[in-house]
């Protein structure tokens, strides 16, 4: 009985922590959606591009921390280029146009990454082992990966930081204003260009961090781009525009994924990890489309 419970705890905790890895990816989407009500199809490519550049720079012998800072600057540059070349010319077009532009941007980043850094899979060693933490294993008899715990801490720190930024800083107010009504925001002097640049750069940095965590787990490879797809159920459940929602959604998806796989999977012949989250997402779309924390659409009738 105890061992059953322990096993369940293990599965649950592993699920929760791997869920935070999904949250990290989802966070990038939330940032951009919050500021421009657009779903950024290029987010997956941004994750790939960011971590690939980071690893590539290290291959040139650049030390870890320097390469990290350089990549951050690189992602800011990508944000700048996106703002000037993609967002500004399309500023007054419909939302659908912007959506398509992000799809295009995704392809450009993918291609660029491969052209510059090549196509081989690379290892990423963060100095954190993706294996059970010894003293937890010995004392609590739970096998919990050190990488998962680190990812959880990092994600939590980022979420707290961003939430505080949005709620209590002047720039956060500017961001929320632009999200509600960009026209009215610019009519009172809120500089749309700066806000957009900031948001896209932030999404780029978040993409880098997410990429690093996933790269350490699964290797830096092309398949990272598809991570973005996994973020979709997280966004639907947590709410596209909610930062705390990204973590709650991630936790829910991560936990349910693992638990369902272990306990119900055998009845389906296994492999339900892949699609169970999407079924959950469909339920939410039917009964609570704005997600758990997303903004209810306020319209005065």
């Amino acid at each position: 009985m105890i061992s059953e419970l322990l096993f369940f705890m293990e599965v649950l905790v592993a699920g929760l922590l791997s869920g935070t890895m999904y949250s990290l990816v989802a966070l990038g989407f939330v940032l951009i959606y919050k500021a421009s009500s657009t779903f950024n199809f290029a987010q997956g490519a941004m994750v790939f591009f960011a971590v690939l550049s980071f690893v590539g720079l290290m291959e040139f012998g650049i030390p870890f921390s320097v390469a990290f800072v350089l990549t951050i600057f690189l992602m800011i540059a990508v944000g700048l280029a996106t703002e000037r070349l993609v967002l500004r010319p399309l500023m007054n077009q419909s939302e659908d146009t912007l959506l398509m532009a992000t799809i295009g941007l995704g392809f450009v980043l993918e291609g660029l990454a491969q052209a510059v850094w090549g196509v081989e899979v690379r290892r990423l060693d963060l100095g954190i082992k993706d294996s059970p933490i010894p003293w937890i294993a010995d004392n609590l008899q739970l096998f919990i990966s050190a990488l998962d715990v680190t990812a959880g801490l990092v994600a939590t720190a980022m979420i707290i930081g961003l939430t505080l930024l949005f709620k209590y800083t002047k720039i956060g107010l500017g961001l929320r204003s632009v999200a509600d009504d960009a026209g009215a925001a610019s009519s009172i002097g809120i500089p749309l260009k700066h806000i957009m640049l900031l948001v896209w750069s932030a999404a780029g940095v978040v993409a880098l961090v997410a990429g690093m965590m996933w790269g350490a787990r699964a290797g830096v490879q092309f398949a990272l781009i598809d991570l973005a797809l996994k973020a979709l159920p997280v966004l639907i459940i947590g709410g596209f525009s909610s930062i705390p929602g990204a973590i709650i959604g991630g936790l829910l998806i991560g936990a349910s994924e693992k638990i369902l796989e272990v306990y119900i999977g055998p009845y389906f012949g296994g492999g339900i990890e892949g699609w169970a989250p999407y079924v959950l997402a469909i339920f939410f779309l039917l009964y609570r489309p704005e997600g758990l924390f997303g903004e209810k659409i306020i319209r005065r009738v």
Partner: protein
Amino acid sequence: MSVDSNNILEVKNIEVVYDNVILALHDVSLTVPKGKIVALLGANGAGKSTTLKSISTMLASERGKVTKGTINYNGNNIEGEIPSRMVHRGMVQVLEGRRCFGHLTVEENIIAGAYSRQLSKGDLSAELEKIYTYFTRLKDRRGSQAGFTSGGEQQMIAVARAMMAKPTMLLLDEPSMGLAPQLVAEIFNIVKELNQKEGVSILLAEQNTNIALKNADYGYILETGRVMLEGSAQSLSNDEKVKELYLGISKGERKNFRDVLYDDEKKKNTTALTTKGRKFEIGGPILEVKNISLHFGGVKAITNISFNILKHEIRAIIGPNGAGKSSMLNCINGIYQPQEGTILYKGAVLDQINPNLISRMGISRTFQNLALFKRMSVLDNILVGRKLHTKSNFMQVGFQFPQAVREEKENKEKCEEIISFLEIEDIKNTQVGKLPYGLQKKVELGRALATQAEILLLDEPMAGMNVEEKRDMCRFILKVNDELGTTIVLIEHDMGVVMDISDRVVVLDYGKSIGDGTPDVVRANQKVIDAYLGVAHD
């Protein structure tokens, strides 16, 4: 080019084009002297908003461009400027239609106005308190989400927010739209104070010619993209043509809105309505509202209201902003479920209703903030109203079964009838989102008419219209009531309209009913006078 340094703004012969093809302004010139209030008047679609947007450089966001002429602000040409830079230069525009940040609180909205200024925390609080002295109502609501405040409060938030940017020139686009007379007076007093105490120059686009000329120093009247008439406010108020067309005063006294119907009939030389009798006599109650109470969280929107609506009558619901009028319609319509009370329609209790069900039962409505399909044409929008009477399913239509073909023909015909009834033939294929506000309101009415409802709920159908257009809309409302016998429930702020065309009036204030009876009875009720008609109406 010589620029008069006494003018803060000089607009010279501008031409404005949208989407590279739609000519909105032909040749507009105007000046705003420093520290003065100048009014831009004219009907919907005349070009007032477009003029303001070319000055504040917000045209680009609607794919518009100034193709000819020059605009000088404080002596400098504004070509190539963008809105946020104009704000730094001291020019702020308050856009048409409220445009608050719905998810932010009232206070956050106002603080956002100071974004472009580098203010310390202390200074920010001081400025905020100063603003609150002008807008005491907003202080009470400072923590509420802006999206949940009433229409009047939202308008005040927009103006307060603009003021926080400390403008030297303010462009106000239709500040009185949809507001009760009392609130309009309040807002204009604030605007006047701003002008006198802070020295802010003001250019204001207004439908309400009356209040605009009362408060402005100078005025320009626009018609189809051109300046038709200009002059000091006083000379314009005394101009005969202006009096007739825009102030509704002919030969010294205001024309009764109901008279338009009989003028129309006389013109057509029909025998109907040669006397002032009704075709459809007012009958018994068709809708009864009993002890309705509605609240949202802690906000009590409606408290224990009861009244009835008689068949074939025109019933008006009036009251200050936030009194609960729209909420009341929403309860009848099925959008809100009241926590207490019952609604009886044709004697049967309405239970668990939703808007879909209600419209099938014969009650249709229009909305205060418009709920049109912006990307569809006028004709298509009205056709949607016909859906209720369309029995063929999509398979039948897909394969063009005879019944489906017949219904489609019938629908098209009925819609063409409505379109010519409302006199909007020339815009029937235009995308509704591109039309000026007043015309959009007409299209909404058309869509409601297409449902052939027994009761029409009209939520401020005349907001944003000048006297001429109101007369027009009244004509249609009266025609609908007269020729089709449709019962009409009307929320309106224009007292002239309400008193002239309604059969009975119910007055709301703070969610309670404070008066119910014929216009004459209500007009004499002291409680109503205090709450609402306090400002002498002319």
